[in-house]
């Protein structure tokens, strides 16, 4: 019996009959060329959880906290309130580059893209904080590509493996993003091998390339000021 959680992406759950989409307690790789909506998909995934009082641990390597909040606000999300209500936990691995990270707190943990070990330590701290209050949660790692720009690619594959185990052991469901073609072909194949599900975005079509309990699925999508919408 596969339990599917609601994705938060409009129209996506309908591909699976409407009762959720992403298999609970699995890790999904979301990949595609730059600027096709991977981060938008991730924000909607976080918002979808918050709607049902399920928190999201967001590891942001691409954007610092200020940018992340701005991006979410554009989609009518209210990140301040989500963070305050412990429905959004952020590990900010980007701000330290510019030296403008905010104060560390229960829901905000500064880290660095230069230091994947520290990111993993913060993942441990955050999952402990989360599981103290919640039984279900989701997590986003956005993006592997940025981690690879600062670290050895094989190290990032190992970090991903450790991240996956941590999240799954704690009962979470995760989404990781990766820009197609940004790593060596061998590394890309390994990324696809270690995750449970694979979704590809190309700017106009979403393809479920692999997913626990289902075959290949595809649908077209559009992006507007409210984010991603899949067409029936």
């Amino acid at each position, binding site marked *: 019996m*596969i339990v599917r959680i609601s994705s938060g992406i409009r129209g996506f759950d309908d591909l699976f009959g409407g009762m959720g989409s992403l298999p609970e307690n699995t890790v999904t790789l979301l990949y595609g060329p730059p600027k096709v909506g991977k981060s938008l998909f991730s924000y909607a995934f976080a918002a979808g959880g918050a709607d049902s009082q399920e928190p999201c641990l967001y590891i942001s390597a691409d954007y610092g906290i200020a940018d992340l909040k701005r991006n979410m606000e554009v989609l009518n999300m209210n990140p301040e309130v989500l963070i305050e209500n412990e429905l959004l936990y952020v590990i900010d691995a980007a701000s330290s580059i510019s030296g403008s990270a905010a104060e560390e707190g229960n829901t905000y943990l500064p880290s660095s893209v230069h230091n994947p070990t520290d990111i993993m330590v913060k993942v441990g701290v955050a999952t402990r904080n989360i599981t103290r209050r919640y039984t279900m949660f989701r997590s986003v790692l956005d993006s592997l590509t940025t981690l690879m720009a600062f670290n050895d690619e094989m190290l990032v594959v*190992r970090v991903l*493996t*450790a991240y996956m*185990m941590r999240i*799954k052991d704690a009962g979470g469901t995760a989404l990781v993003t990766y820009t197609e073609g940004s790593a060596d072909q061998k590394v890309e194949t390994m990324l*696809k*091998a270690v995750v449970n599900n694979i979704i590809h975005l190309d700017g106009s079509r979403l393809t479920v390339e692999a997913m626990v*309990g289902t075959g290949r699925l595809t649908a077209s999508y559009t992006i507007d000021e409210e984010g991603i919408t899949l067409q029936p």
Partner: protein
Amino acid sequence: MSGNYTTGISGLDVLLGELEPGSVMILTGPPKVGKSVLAMEFMYRGLQNQTPCLFIAAEYGYSDLQRNAMTFNWFLQSFSDDLHVIDLPTRLAGGRPRIQVT
């Protein structure tokens, strides 16, 4: 052990015939085509026939193996005497295997 044995996977046994003890097979292919599923079924059908299995899990830990098997309604708990798992990644993630395995 005496005699040859089969994988127990319907269709595959027709292709392969009986396997000789002592032989090693390599199963290869792109990501997400069913390599791990086939490996898991090979293990499970063996366990059902009282053939013990040494499973070296490098990609996912023991709890994931149990979970993955459960999606096919294969319950590994009932075979814990015959299933020996070497769990490589769980320690990497700082976790401890939930069940002590030999």
